[in-house]
């Protein structure tokens, strides 16, 4: 990511130095909207609830850009100091080697190093910095789109992250509850739009199975292992159509893919059901080996054909 923003900008703005990048650390906000008809994915945080929470703790607008940490966090030096908050997956946080708390705003004095350690429960932790990460927005968002190649890209050692001044309130001094991640979370699914492409038992198989998240999962989607969801009738090809995060797309092998934040804008396999928006943040916290269940949820309106 080195060099994606002008050096002058980093000189006039406070900046954070990336000492060690962590396993996969990305700048994410609420994503790009309004460009899907040009093939631009939404991207943005995989767990928007934890992103919003971390931002509120440090007095940022809920949709400010923050760092999405996956499995193992970065080491960051704060030459000018600041306030940070880590929310989402359970992690150890330390400032200059002294343990600090997650799920609460933490002061970082000038020159100190914040270390975000290994994730102990969940998958992704959001580290918000008071003022927001101020990389230049691309098409209205600072998010890294790992599929479309937009935004600043994966963090590397030596990167300078500019910090903005977009605060809307004071630092919130109380801790907030941590992520509640059941062993088998149950996500609500609205059937369709292409449930009629499947044999009658398919929806029952979908909701009656504890699906296992496989290692071939990422920000685009969770590939799920379990019984095949049978198609109705002879094989036919769906004309490619618009996709959304939350869609359970079923390729010919019958194993569903649950699309997450970096879902493509279109896809060519039928969608048997779509996870409701409020349950998607939990899906963004599921790592390989975790199990997940689905339950039917009434549609927002009755289909007309």
């Amino acid at each position, binding site marked *: 990511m080195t060099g994606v923003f002008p050096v002058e900008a980093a000189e006039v703005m406070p900046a954070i130095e990336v000492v060690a990048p962590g396993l996969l650390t990305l700048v994410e906000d609420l994503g790009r909207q309004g460009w899907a008809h040009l*093939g631009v994915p939404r991207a943005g945080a995989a767990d928007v609830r934890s992103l919003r929470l971390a931002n509120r703790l440090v007095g940022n607008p809920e949709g400010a850009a923050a760092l999405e940490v996956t499995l193992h966090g970065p080491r960051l030096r704060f030459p000018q100091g600041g306030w940070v908050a880590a929310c989402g997956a359970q992690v150890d946080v330390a400032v200059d080697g002294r343990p600090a708390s997650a799920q609460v705003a933490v002061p970082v004095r000038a020159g100190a190093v914040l270390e975000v350690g290994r994730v102990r429960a969940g998958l992704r932790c959001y580290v918000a910095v008071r003022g927001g990460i101020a990389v230049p927005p691309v098409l209205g968002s600072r998010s890294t789109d790992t599929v479309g190649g937009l935004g600043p890209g994966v963090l590397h050692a030596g990167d300078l992250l500019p910090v903005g001044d977009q605060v809307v309130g004071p630092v919130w001094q109380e801790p907030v509850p941590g992520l509640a991640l059941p062993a088998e979370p149950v996500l609500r699914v609205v059937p369709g739009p292409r449930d009629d492409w499947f044999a009658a038992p398919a929806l029952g198989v979908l909701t009656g199975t504890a699906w296992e998240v496989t290692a071939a999962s990422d920000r685009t989607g969770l590939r799920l292992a379990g019984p095949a969801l049978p198609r109705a009738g002879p094989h036919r090809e769906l004309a490619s*159509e*618009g996709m959304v995060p*939350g869609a359970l797309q079923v390729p010919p092998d019958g194993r569903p893919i649950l699309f997450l934040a970096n879902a493509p804008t279109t896809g060519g396999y039928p969608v048997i059901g*779509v996870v409701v928006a409020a349950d998607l943040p939990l899906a963004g916290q599921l790592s390989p080996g975790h199990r997940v269940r689905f339950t039917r949820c009434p549609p927002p309106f009755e289909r007309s054909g």
Partner: protein
Amino acid sequence: MTRVADPDRPVAADPPVSALPARPVGDTAFVVDVRDLATVHRLHAAVRAAVTAGRVPAVVDVVPAYRSVLVVVDPARTGVEAVADAVRRLPLPDTAAAQGRTVEVPVVYDGPDLPEVCARTGLPVDEVIARHAAPAYLVAFLGFAPGFPYLVGLDPALHVPRRATPRTRVPAGAVGLGGDQTGVYPRDSPGGWQLIGHTDTVLFDPLRSPPALLAPGDRLRFVAVR
């Protein structure tokens, strides 16, 4: 009798969108299924115009595809049912009003797979080029990657299978054939199409306005420059 044009009043011949089937897509989107691509583009134009004019609130994305239009709603602002109702009350503009521009893309036909395409089609190189550059391809929709057009109109004589082994890296601007599809790779990526040429035309640049060279409903013409 004089007829006064009223832009807000549907012309009698236009069927309302309510005649088209709509299905929920989760709790924040819905899809309207239509019969053909011309209607996709008319509906896309109608929804986009209504959103721009403020007649349909809270729509964040409208995604046309081959036979459907997906409408994505901001659930913080309104319920998806209200938006579906508003969209399904829209009149469809006539086909002419929904027509896009014609964009020319210069191509140097020097792709590494030209000999294989000639062998598979039984056509000489000049004929492959002539047939590829002849149509005004319809941009059905964009997807797969930012700015990537799904084009309709490839000459059936140029339908060739994808490469048995995809290339691990195809450079941005490569022009290829695969099945009944032809197109331009918008960025460096792996790919299995038969490459017949390349263009310097940039299909997608996030710093440009609009960022994509093409929009759904546009026409694209490849122009041979060699």
